[in-house]
């Protein structure tokens, strides 16, 4: 019971790996003490769900919003692979035959979409970090300082994605004048 609770608690705990290990280890010790005293059930009841416990424990740690001078280069680092893929898809000078051209271009665009809408959200969900954020020591957390849920990780990307699609659609039907 303790192991399951602590594993779920660890899942929701934000912070650096060292911070998380320390907090998780401390909770585990606490629960073992409670078990030895025959008070495990009451202790777990007081703690609430693992997420509630993680939220309460994280209140003691200072989680500061990242500075712009870290966020900007981190975002640039995450965008570089995307830019490289899109550059290859649209501006490659030595593009082979037309068939391969279309197929490869589609594949590259698919890769870009996957990178932005699958790889980065998955990385943020599992570790709180994308490659760029990892390079600059940033971590994505919820408003209550717990780790983000899978839904939050994917929804964070939706506005950008939806905006792009909407712009594409709008550009496809741009009203114009017809010279009679």
């Amino acid at each position, binding site marked *: 019971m303790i192991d399951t609770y602590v594993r779920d608690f660890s899942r929701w705990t934000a912070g650096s790996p060292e911070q998380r290990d*320390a907090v998780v*280890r401390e909770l585990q*010790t606490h629960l073992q003490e409670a078990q030895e005293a025959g008070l495990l059930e*009451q202790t777990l009841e*007081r703690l609430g769900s693992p997420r*509630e416990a993680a939220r*309460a424990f994280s209140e*003691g740690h*200072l989680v500061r919003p990242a500075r712009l001078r870290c966020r900007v280069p981190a975002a640039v680092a995450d965008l570089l692979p995307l830019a490289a893929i899109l550059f290859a898809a649209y501006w490659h000078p030595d593009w082979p035959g037309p068939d391969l051209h279309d197929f490869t271009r589609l594949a590259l665009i698919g890769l870009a979409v996957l990178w932005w809408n699958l790889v980065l959200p998955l990385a943020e969900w599992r570790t709180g970090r994308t490659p760029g954020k990892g390079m600059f020591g940033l971590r994505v957390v919820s408003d209550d300082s717990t780790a983000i849920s899978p839904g939050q990780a994917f929804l964070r990307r939706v506005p950008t994605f939806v905006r792009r699609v909407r712009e594409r659609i709008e550009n496809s039907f741009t009203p114009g004048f017809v010279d009679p």
Partner: protein
Amino acid sequence: MSGRQKRTQHTGQEGWAAQREFSRGALELAVLALIQGRPRYGYDLLTSLGEATDGFLAVKEGTVYPVLHRLEDAGYLSASWEAEGRGVPRKYYAITPAGSRRLAVLRSEWDRLVAGLGRLLEGGGT
């Protein structure tokens, strides 16, 4: 009997709510005071808080640990993992010189508050 049950038995739900408000402000002082006596780990501190205050400060884990972490981050407490004999290693918190100074300030302010409130209540608020 849990701390909350004990408190509710003494003063009812309203009393419990009032105690919760008071204990929120007094917790940092109580934690520093207990740890100044000797280094303590979380479980020990939690039970001691309830016992030493007759249930008044019988707070939850989700209240005590954030206070400990905040005091540690602020440099008022230092922490180290230690094991007694073959027992499970525990994270012991000890007070630092900055923590002792903080405790002195809090204690002084607490004394002023108690004295001031005492005068106010004895005078009937006039």
